[in-house]
């Protein structure tokens, strides 16, 4: 029996592959966060002002807030369908540390819903007239910030996986927690615009990301065990 047992890394890879496969088959999981992001961002020129000077000032903030909302809403399905079809129980009964399996699910979720949003953000930054010198910083902050959001959101989703309607409760739990990310993300862009170095903020976000990667999956795993009870 021991000869046939898997290593944890194999289980990690299998879980990652499976979640990506499901996302590819469902398509909506990939397209919707992306569409939501674009639609929400394009509400701002309509609601606030279509003048390019005004837009420039609010561009970074608007993009960041929309990313926050999109990534929060896309969390909804992270564990839900697994919970409903019983796959989550199988995950919990695996002999491997739940930490890594949860991490695999989080990574796959970010690849599917966070990354496309980050990739399309320069286009929207252009539409909102963000000065070109800030693109690099914006993308970097988003690259660091969206995984943090996914990791935090994962805890909230894991806590509420058994609930019927959760859209809003998720928001009420995760949005306050994402304030620090929002602050550093926008500050970094702002300081680039003021020709200052954003490195300080970026490294702070990096620290936050590493803390989140090492702690959040633990909390998610505990939350899943609580919810499946």
């Amino acid at each position: 029996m021991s000869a046939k047992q898997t290593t944890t890394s194999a289980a990690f890879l299998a879980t990652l592959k499976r979640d990506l496969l499901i996302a590819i088959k469902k398509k909506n999981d990939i397209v919707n966060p992306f569409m939501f992001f674009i639609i929400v961002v394009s509400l701002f020129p309509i609601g606030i002002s279509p003048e390019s000077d005004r837009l420039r000032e609010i561009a970074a903030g608007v993009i960041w807030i929309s990313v926050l909302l999109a990534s929060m809403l896309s969390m909804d399905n992270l564990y839900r369908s697994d919970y409903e079809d019983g796959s989550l129980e199988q995950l919990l009964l695996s002999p491997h540390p739940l930490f890594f399996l949860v991490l695999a699910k989080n990574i796959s979720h970010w690849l599917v819903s966070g990354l496309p949003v980050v990739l399309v953000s320069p286009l929207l930054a252009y539409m909102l007239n963000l000065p070109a010198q800030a693109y690099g910083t914006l993308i970097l902050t988003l690259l660091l910030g969206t995984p943090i959001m996914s990791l935090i959101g994962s805890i909230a989703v894991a806590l509420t996986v058994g609930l019927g309607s959760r859209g809003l409760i998720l928001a009420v739990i995760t949005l306050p927690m994402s304030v620090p990310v929002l602050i550093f993300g926008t500050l970094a862009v702002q300081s680039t615009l003021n020709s200052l170095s954003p490195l300080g903020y970026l490294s702070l976000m990096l620290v936050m990301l590493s803390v989140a990667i090492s702690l959040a999956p633990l909390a998610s795993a505990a939350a899943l065990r609580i919810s499946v009870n």
Partner: protein
Amino acid sequence: MWLWFSKLGSPKWFYELSGRWLPWLTAAMIIFMTIGLVWGLLFLPPDYQQGFTSRILIVHVAVAGTSLAFFPLMFVAGTITLVWKMKLADMVAKNAAILGAWFSFVTLATGSLWGSVMWGTWWEWTDSRLVSMLFQLFLLIGVISLRSALEDSETAAKACALLSIVGCINVVIIKYSVEWWNTLHQASSPISTDSSSPNGPEFWIATLIMIVAVYLFLSVSLILATRNEILERERRSQWVRDLVLKS
């Protein structure tokens, strides 16, 4: 030690003990509250620049200081719930979240009333204490709504315990990041602790008495609510039945 700990966790034991303490705590609360209020309202000399609005400050500072105690309290209660599965800790945590939301709200309200005198505006985003208190209120409401959404009480207990622990860490991070963000936007915060120094010692003694009074109030109210919770959750046990029959 362990025996004592598990005895403390027994709701019945707590109910009886708190029943004995409650009159004393209530009496102390009434005394401190009366002294604080009478002194504060009648005797406190006007502030050299703020006039009689310093009467707002003693209430505000007492409530604001006390409301910072809730997340640590819930952190401890949450850890006990998760690690030792003690039901009593959850009963405390449940009511602490609700009471904490009240405290945060009153801090915000009294602070605004003060601000409208001092800065001429009820709300100011450029102040870090205001913003981080607002988000503390949001997080507490998140904990409360998570509990009301989960129907199974045991799951709710553990889920809220976990969320309080995560939330406590977050309150700290939010507080520091908001503070830092504000110092970058505006050099001087409108709430400056320095401005209090010209005030005489009376002011600080009055405030201190109010702080003690508010802490006593916090414990009385929390104990009352926890006792109700115990009665509801243990309603099927014999001792509650006996108690109900006697009353």
